[in-house]
């Protein structure tokens, strides 16, 4: 790419224009978020312009608010259950998807990704009808868990299937030749190899669940997750408390991303050290 030296006299201008465009794009992407964080430290009690001084008051309020504490607990519980369900169901489904003699494999694969393709709104309302009119369940965090799992499981399936597809079958053949039965092959060969994908899938499901709004809105009933709580607060405008809560969530998701990037590296390092010691 770099070796393409444009023979146009406008080359420098072009480079400059595209560069400026990119700068504008990044400003566009980050300005709202930066403002949000800035306002969370703003003493102005309307949570917006003008800046009237720095304060940590709104953070104090967030930590003292029992509604937020409740919502956080519910959010984490729901996310944990969703992660468990979608990791198990998704990993189990990835195996036959890649390895069985499946007729219409591509059709099945597309079918499995359908919950991602159709708007969450439709998943939400259709499950609402099922839960209330057919099963007569009371809406609760549990019904929200089911709804979210429908949406997050496909991500696990895709990630794990890609990894299963990618690894060398002769490894398993070798294990088999050395006398490993199905269970041992799975435990000592296959699972360690696809672990990164399972982990990535679990992390994906967890983050998606933390953030999920529309399905949860229909299915959670009288309870609140953090997104639902924020929604009820901001329907009528901005509050500085929500700005602070939002900034905290932002920091939380940044930590999650950092973990997601750092952990595979750490694991590889550990394995390496382990292997070196054994040798």
């Amino acid at each position: 790419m770099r070796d393409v030296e444009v023979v146009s006299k406008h080359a420098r201008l072009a480079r400059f224009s595209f560069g400026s465009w990119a700068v504008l794009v990044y400003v566009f992407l980050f300005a709202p978020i930066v403002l949000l964080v800035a306002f969370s430290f703003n003493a102005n009690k309307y949570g917006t312009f003008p800046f009237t001084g720095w304060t940590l008051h709104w953070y104090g309020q967030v930590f003292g608010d029992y509604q937020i504490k409740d919502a956080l607990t519910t959010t984490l519980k729901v996310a944990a259950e969703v992660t468990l369900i979608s990791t198990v169901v998704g990993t189990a489904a990835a195996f036959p998807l890649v390895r069985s003699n499946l007729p219409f494999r591509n059709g099945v694969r597309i079918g499995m990704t359908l919950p991602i393709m159709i708007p969450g709104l439709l998943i939400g309302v259709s499950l609402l009808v099922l839960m209330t009119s057919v099963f007569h369940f009371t809406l609760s965090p549990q019904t929200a868990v089911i709804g979210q799992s429908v949406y997050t499981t496909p991500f696990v399936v895709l990630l794990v299937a890609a990894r299963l597809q990618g690894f060398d079958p002769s490894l398993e053949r070798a294990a088999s030749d050395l006398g490993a039965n199905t269970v041992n092959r799975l435990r000592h060969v296959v699972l360690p190899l696809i672990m990164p994908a399972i982990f990535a899938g679990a992390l994906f499901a967890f983050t998606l669940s933390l953030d999920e709004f529309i399905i949860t809105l229909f299915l959670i009933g009288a309870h609140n997750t953090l997104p639902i709580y924020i929604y009820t607060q901001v329907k009528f405008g901005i509050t500085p408390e929500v700005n602070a809560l939002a900034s905290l969530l932002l920091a939380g998701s940044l930590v999650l991303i950092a973990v997601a990037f750092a952990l595979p590296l750490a694991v590889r390092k550990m394995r390496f050290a382990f292997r070196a010691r054994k040798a």
Partner: protein
Amino acid sequence: MDQDLTTSSAAPPVDLPAGRRTSRVAGLGQYAGFIPALILYGVFFLVPLGLIVAYSFWTVVDYNVVHDWTLDNYHYFFSVPTYVRTMWATLWVSFAATAITLLIAFPFAYWLVRYVRRSLQGFFLILVVLPFWTSYLLRVYSWINILGEKGAINRFLLWTGVIDKPASFFLYDRPAVILVLVYLYFPFAALTLYASLERFDWNQFKAAMDLGAPPRTAITRIMIPQMKAGIVTAVIFVFIPILGEYLAPQLVGGARGVMIGNLIVNFFSGAQYTRGAAAALLIAVLIVILLVIFRKSLDVKDPYRA
């Protein structure tokens, strides 16, 4: 050693250990892994969708759903001018937002592939995706800080003296909705366009220019036709979810920015299940049709059986 083996990807699917596998896990056993997924998807995805289809053809009498097959809900939907207008508005808002997203994303992807050192491209991509990893709700909400009556734009215009009292024009109307939708879906478009530009053979670009084509012609005649798959994928990832958007029009669109997603939610929260189901099904059918058209034009091959 095993590192080498694991990284040699693109392996054929596992048909092994050959003889043993077919005899032991023969027949239906190989599909056992699908069972939990079948329960989850069957009971909690397909059945509810079927219910929505059925509900859209049933009616409500005295707050009870009556299983009489009828087209009343659809007649009703199309007989209310506001609903029909909202449906058209949803289509053009989705179209406009998708077009603008792609128009912003293309020069960006071009810049990234053409002018940024390869070793830095990953970093700049992560920067694009970073806002995407923050809460969806918060990304919508954060725009109120900018577009609102006391938001950044109004403050700026007041300060420069262009206006003398805060304008509410920026918020609670369709332009605001489109802007926020572009913001929400830009990462999808940027990533897919980058992925397809990254595979582009720049020698062809050079060749076109050697043959006298100005850069603009080289882009429109050589580059963009080869990016067709990437562009279609980007459209799938942007246009289709926007059709079912609820939150963005709800928070920044106000009464004038309503989209069909808001209608559906209103129907359901007003317990008008059958009418809501009809509206939901209209969207679902539209999406399925679009997906089929797009898939056709993509001509996806089975990735697991290359």
